[in-house]
C-alpha cells in the first residue's frame, strides 16, 4: 500500500480546496467550484505562501470570518492580465469579417463578458468608432470583480504599456494614430472620455448570473480557460442563448468551441482567431 506523505498530502489538499470553495460559495455566493482545479490550486497555494496561514483549512476559517480576505481571494482567483488590442489579428479579422455585417444593422448590442480592467472594451470602442458604428452601439462590459470594474471605468492605464498598445493598434488595422485616443499625464494615460459614452459597466457573474439581453456580438477572451469543461459548456450555453441569430462570438485565441457541446450550433468565421457566428434557427 502507498501511504507516503506526498500522495497523502495531495489527497488532503484536494479535500481542503473543495471545502474552501464550498465555504466561499455557501457564505458569499461566489462559485469557483467548477473552475479548473490545476488553476485554483496554483492560486490558492500562492496566496497561502504569501500569508501567515499554515494550511488551506486555516484559510477557510479566515475567509468565513473576514470579508476583506475574501476580496483578496477574489482578486487572486480572477486573472486580470490583459492589454489593448490583445492579439491584433483578432481585431483585424473582426474589422474585415464582422464589421461589414454589423453595418447592416440599425443598432448593435455588444456584450464584453469578463472585461477585467477594460483594455479590450476600449479597444472595441475605438474599432467601432473608426468604422462609423459607435454611435449606434451599446456595449455592456461586465465582470464579477467589482474592483477591476472600477478600474475599467476610470480608463487610466500605465504609460509604460502604451508602446505595446500602439504596436498592437497598428497591427490590428487601426485607421489613425493611437495617440489620438489618450492624454498622457505623468506616468499614466487617460483614454479619450468620449469612448465611454456607449459603455455600461456592470457586475455580472458568468457562473451564477443569466441572460440579460439579446446581443449581436459577445466577446469573452481568456476567461473560459480558467473553467473546467462542464462550466465551459454551461457558459457557451449562456452565450448561445444571449445571441441573436447570426450573432458573433469571439473568444481567446487558445479557447475553442471545438471540444464543447455547442460546436454544431455555430459557423466558424476564423478557426485561428476563434470568431464564431450563431447559426440561424428555423
Amino acid at each position, binding site marked *: *500500500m502507498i501511504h507516503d506523505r506526498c500522495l497523502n498530502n495531495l489527497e488532503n489538499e484536494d479535500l481542503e480546496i473543495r471545502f474552501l470553495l464550498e465555504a466561499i460559495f455557501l457564505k458569499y455566493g461566489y462559485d469557483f467550484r467548477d473552475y*479548473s482545479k*490545476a488553476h485554483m490550486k496554483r492560486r490558492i497555494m500562492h496566496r497561502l505562501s504569501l500569508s501567515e496561514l499554515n494550511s488551506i483549512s486555516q484559510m477557510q476559517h479566515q475567509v468565513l470570518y473576514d470579508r476583506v480576505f475574501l476580496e483578496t481571494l477574489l482578486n487572486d482567483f480572477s486573472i486580470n492580465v490583459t492589454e489593448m488590442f490583445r492579439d491584433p489579428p483578432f481585431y483585424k479579422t473582426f474589422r474585415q469579417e464582422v464589421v461589414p455585417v454589423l453595418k447592416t444593422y440599425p443598432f448593435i448590442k455588444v456584450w464584453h463578458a469578463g472585461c477585467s480592467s477594460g483594455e479590450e472594451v476600449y479597444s472595441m470602442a475605438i474599432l467601432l468608432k473608426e468604422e462609423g458604428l459607435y454611435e449606434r452601439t451599446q456595449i455592456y462590459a461586465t465582470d464579477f470583480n467589482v474592483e477591476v470594474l472600477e478600474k475599467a471605468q476610470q480608463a487610466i492605464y500605465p504609460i509604460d504599456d502604451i508602446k505595446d498598445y500602439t504596436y498592437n493598434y497598428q497591427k490590428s488595422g487601426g485607421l489613425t494614430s493611437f495617440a489620438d485616443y489618450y492624454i498622457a499625464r505623468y506616468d499614466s494615460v487617460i483614454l479619450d472620455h468620449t469612448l465611454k459614452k456607449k459603455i455600461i459597466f456592470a457586475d455580472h457573474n458568468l457562473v451564477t448570473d443569466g441572460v440579460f439581453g439579446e446581443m449581436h456580438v459577445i466577446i469573452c477572451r481568456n476567461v*473560459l480557460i480558467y473553467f473546467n469543461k462542464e462550466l465551459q459548456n454551461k457558459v457557451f450555453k449562456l452565450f448561445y442563448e444571449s445571441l441573436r441569430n447570426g450573432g458573433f462570438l469571439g473568444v481567446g485565441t*487558445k479557447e*475553442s468551441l471545438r*471540444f464543447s457541446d455547442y460546436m454544431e450550433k455555430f459557423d466558424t468565421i476564423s478557426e485561428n482567431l476563434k470568431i464564431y457566428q450563431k447559426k440561424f434557427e428555423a
Partner: protein
Amino acid sequence: MGYRAIVIGSSTGGMEALRIILEVLPKDFPVPILVAQHISSHSDNYLAKFLDNVCKVSVKEAEEKEKASPGQVYLAPPNYHLLVEQDGLISLSVEARVSYARPSIDVLFESAAEAYNRDLIGIVLTGANSDGSRGLKKIKECHGLTIVQDPNTALAEAMPRAAIGATKVDYITPLTEIGQLLNKIIKGKSGDKSGYE
C-alpha cells in the same frame, strides 16, 4: 500501471535539444509528452511545425481542454502557461509570468506531478536560468522519475545545474542519449512498473 506522461522543460538552446531527443522516438510512442520551451511571446507556432516535420511522433501546440494522448507531443503556446488537470485534460493560463517566464516550466511540472504522481517522467534540458528546478523537485517528491541533461552537453548549463542542485535526480544524461533512455524506460516499464505496490 506504468508511466503515463513525460514533461520536458527547456530554454536557451532548447529547439535543437528537443529535436535531438524527440526525433529518436517512434511514431506510436505510448505516452503523451508535454513541453514548456521558453519562447518569445510574439512567436507563432514555428517550433511545433519544425519539430513535427523532423520527428516521427506528432508535435503540436497544446489546445485548451484537450486530452493529453499517447504518441503526441504538446508544446506550451507562446505567452501561455501549460497545465495538466487530474483527469489528463490540458489547461492553459495567462496568469502572471513565473520567474519571468510564460510558459513556465515549474508551472507545467508542478501541475503534472499532481496529475500523474509517480507515473510521470520529468526532464530538464539546457537553459540559462533556474526555471524547472522547483518543479522537478516536486516530481521527485511525488516519486516520479527525474532526468536532467548532463550540463556538459548543454548549450546553457545553468538550468540543468540548478535542477541537479535542487533535488537528487535519477539520471544525469548526455543530450544525445536521452531519447534512447526514454525508449528504454518506456519499453521496459510501461504497463509493468513494479516495485511500489
